[in-house]
């Protein structure tokens, strides 16, 4: 496993242990963690390895515990619309399995062929369709966690509605692996859409306000889009060939309903805007391309590159994007961005000189915080993560988070210092 790639990535992104463990069963995971707990080892946890540049104030761990080979479907009950899977299963493998049953896990994160369900849930990754289907916290109904001392703790259950005890699932979703290893995930499923289409609306430079107004109008109207994702001109050019602000309005429903909503779009297309509608396979192909536009740690990049995630109120996404573009111009960096006007998450790929990138991050963070939002850095080389805070300032109730980490992982076995405030 000590390939050239491994060494390079090790240097660039950190979050790797000097010893490599690849358990293939839950018992093995328990055994390793128990041993680490006893021996005082620090363990870095990963599976697909796509998020190695995401957080983390430590260059070195004693071990890497890779769940890449701990994969597969544990249980699927088509009638109950639930599935239980092992964490190393990639999103694409999961969706392909479910396709046969006309079902899907309603998560559309980047890099489905590489990203694993364990990683997606630990990092709370989501995609444009979050608007309609929610994020990991809305889909996960049960987890098996190997606690840092090797105990197995089940949270939630296998039923879609459950309020017995604390909703412990939530603690581990987005916890960046700092509270243990997820060894099994049970999720609710949805039927695969019977028909889908995607409307791309683009406007000439300087008229992007029209897209904002269109998004407001869409949300006020009696139509139910599954995405309201806006692309900056640079990102749009990569995906559509046209360098213009573009709004992606997706529809998934029975065919007649999708068609009716397309009709609404045609009728409400803003003046000077270009509207293109992709159907079925074309739409799916577009989303496949969209999913691989934002680099991950496996992507080879010529320039220094940072990936940022912003969370704001829904419509502030639009302002965040224009602010980002302005910052890009003033600091001489290239910025590609997309964000959901209906769900409040936006993402920025910033390429350029180190200091400029840091200046842009700080500028954008100030803008987000001013609106009651935040910026986190989803990918940045390790040496730069020391210069700029990945997670932003600690919230007022940080002591509770510290307390939780201490209660669950008192010896700091799992992904120590990976998360906010060094927990």
């Amino acid at each position: 496993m000590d390939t050239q790639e491994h060494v390079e990535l090790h240097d660039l992104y950190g979050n790797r242990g000097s010893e490599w463990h690849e358990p293939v069963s839950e018992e093995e995971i328990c055994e390793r963690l128990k041993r680490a707990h006893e021996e005082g080892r620090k363990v870095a946890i990963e599976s697909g390895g796509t998020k190695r540049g995401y957080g983390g104030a430590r260059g070195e761990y004693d071990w890497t515990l890779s769940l890449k080979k701990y994969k597969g479907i544990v249980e699927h009950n088509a009638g109950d619309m639930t599935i239980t899977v092992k964490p190393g299963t990639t999103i694409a493998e999961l969706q392909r399995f479910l396709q046969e049953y006309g079902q899907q896990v309603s998560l559309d994160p980047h890099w489905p062929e590489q990203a694993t369900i364990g990683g997606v849930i630990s990092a709370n990754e989501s995609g444009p369709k979050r608007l309609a289907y929610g994020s990991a916290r809305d889909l996960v109904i049960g987890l098996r966690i190997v606690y840092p001392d090797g105990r197995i703790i089940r949270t939630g259950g296998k039923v879609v509605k459950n309020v017995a005890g604390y909703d412990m699932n939530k603690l581990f979703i987005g916890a960046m692996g700092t509270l243990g290893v997820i060894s099994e995930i049970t999720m609710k499923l949805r039927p695969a859409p019977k028909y889908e289409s995607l409307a791309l609306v683009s406007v000439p430079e300087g008229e992007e306000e029209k897209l904002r107004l269109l998004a407001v109008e869409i949300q006020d109207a009696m139509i139910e889009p599954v995405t309201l994702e806006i692309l900056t001109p640079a990102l749009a050019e990569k995906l559509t060939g046209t360098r213009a602000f573009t709004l992606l309005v997706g529809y998934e429903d029975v065919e007649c309903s999708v068609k009716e909503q397309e009709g609404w779009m045609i009728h409400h297309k803003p003046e000077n805007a270009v509207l293109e509608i992709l159907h079925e396979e074309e739409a799916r192909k577009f989303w496949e391309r969209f999913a691989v536009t934002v680099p991950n740690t496996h992507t080879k990049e010529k320039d220094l590159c940072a990936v940022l995630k912003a969370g704001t109120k829904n419509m502030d996404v639009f302002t965040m994007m224009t602010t980002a573009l302005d910052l890009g111009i003033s600091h001489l960096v290239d910025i590609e961005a997309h964000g959901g006007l209906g769900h409040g998450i936006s993402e920025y790929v910033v390429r350029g000189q180190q200091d400029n990138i840091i200046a842009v991050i700080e500028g954008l963070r100030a803008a987000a915080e001013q609106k009651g939002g935040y910026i986190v850095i989803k990918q940045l080389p390790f040496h730069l993560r020391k210069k700029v805070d990945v997670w932003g300032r600690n919230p007022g109730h940080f002591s509770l988070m510290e307390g939780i980490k201490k209660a669950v992982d008192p010896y700091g076995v799992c992904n120590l210092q990976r998360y906010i405030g060094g927990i």
Partner: protein
Amino acid sequence: MKRKKQNKVDPHIRSLTKIVGESEILYKPEDLISYDCDGFTVHKALPKAVVFPKNTEEVAALVQYCHMNHLPFLARGAGTGLSGGAIPLNEEIIISLVKMKQLLCVDYENRQAVVQPGYVNLKLTNSISDKGYYYAPDPSSQYVCTIGGNVAENAGGAHCLKYGVTTNHILGLEVVLPHGEVIEIGGEGAPDSPGYDLMGLLTGSEGTLGIVTKITVRILKSPQGKKTVLAYFDDVEEGSRAVSDIIAAGIVPAALEMMDKTAIEGVEAGTFPVGHPPDIEAFLLIEVDGIMAGLEEQIEQILEVCESWNVREVKVAKSEEERSRWWANRKTGFGAMGAISPDYLVQDGVIPRSRLPEVLKEIEKISRESGLRIANIFHAGDGNLHPLILFDSRVPGETEKALQAGTACLKACADVGGSITGEHGVGIEKKEEMRFIFTEEEIEAQLDIRDVFNPYDLLNQGKLFPKPSRCMDVKKIVKDTVAVQS
């Protein structure tokens, strides 16, 4: 004479009165009787006092006082909870949040509203419906229950099959922690704020981790169209098979409810009868919503499925008026049991949908063996069963029998891989049954989390977890010896 009188008042009461004012505290035993239980009436106990704070600062001051003086306390909303979460087992100070009932703001563009905890669930929908919006979680008690209570219990409702439960609709919380510190989680409603998901943890923590004083919720655009179907079956099993087939056909109904014969007898004797045939074994109430153009197709599919399971009669609501009559009939189902039985105990088990027929048979067996009638009202679409055990507390021994039957129902659910509560919470009622689904270690793991927030266990003591799950808790349990009321 005067001094003597003053001395009689507990000094704690005097201090609490200073915080909230003379008119906002109850402490005379006669006044406290009304607070000896919530919607769960099997256990009753008097609080030490009930206080009615008007704002977050007062809540924080009250909590600080309780913390400093080691007085147990708990928060209460409308008191409609069905698991006893607001019952003062330890002579608590009840902090009633019903006076904090403002709708603070509605932000249509960002799809969110901010409310105080005492704001009534349905009022939110009523105040935004003229603009075409609504608040999705709709527990049957939505006419009266408060959103603060909904957060504490992670309330569900008939329409959570498609739209999710309370936790899926909360964007931000202001919380008074058990030592009196006020924190904000989720900021102004930005999603995924960095750090552990404390909002998710607090939602459904049954008031044991903190007291919520402000809530930012997601509001949704009302669907363009709704179609509601009522299907009558001569066989409960056929009805429940139809439920599975509707879901398997790739339809996501907004709601899929079922009632059996005894439950139908109850609602027909209640205030909102709709004239269900008396000899029917079960009915399904199915609602689909969304883009009008697509609904007809789904309704046809639903009718087909029902036909294939020998439905006796099936009808689509012809007007909004008819639809709301059907829903009023369903939503008042629990209370309507009063019309056919002096007391009832409602259970709240959840099972994988596909196991419905076998669990229903098991419940029937429990009913036979206990000699108590059991009515079934359930959210069939998500496998959430509400067996209503009918009994008469005036008959000696019948309350105990009902409690046993309730436990047996939950065991039946747990045995098929289900849960002991889908939306009512554990409270006092299902503490012991927690062991049906969690190991000692798992319960311990949850207590570890509680201790981070509530280390002295002054807030809503003796709820949620079985006793004694660890030595430390044993001494508290001694106090917790509330006799079962007969």
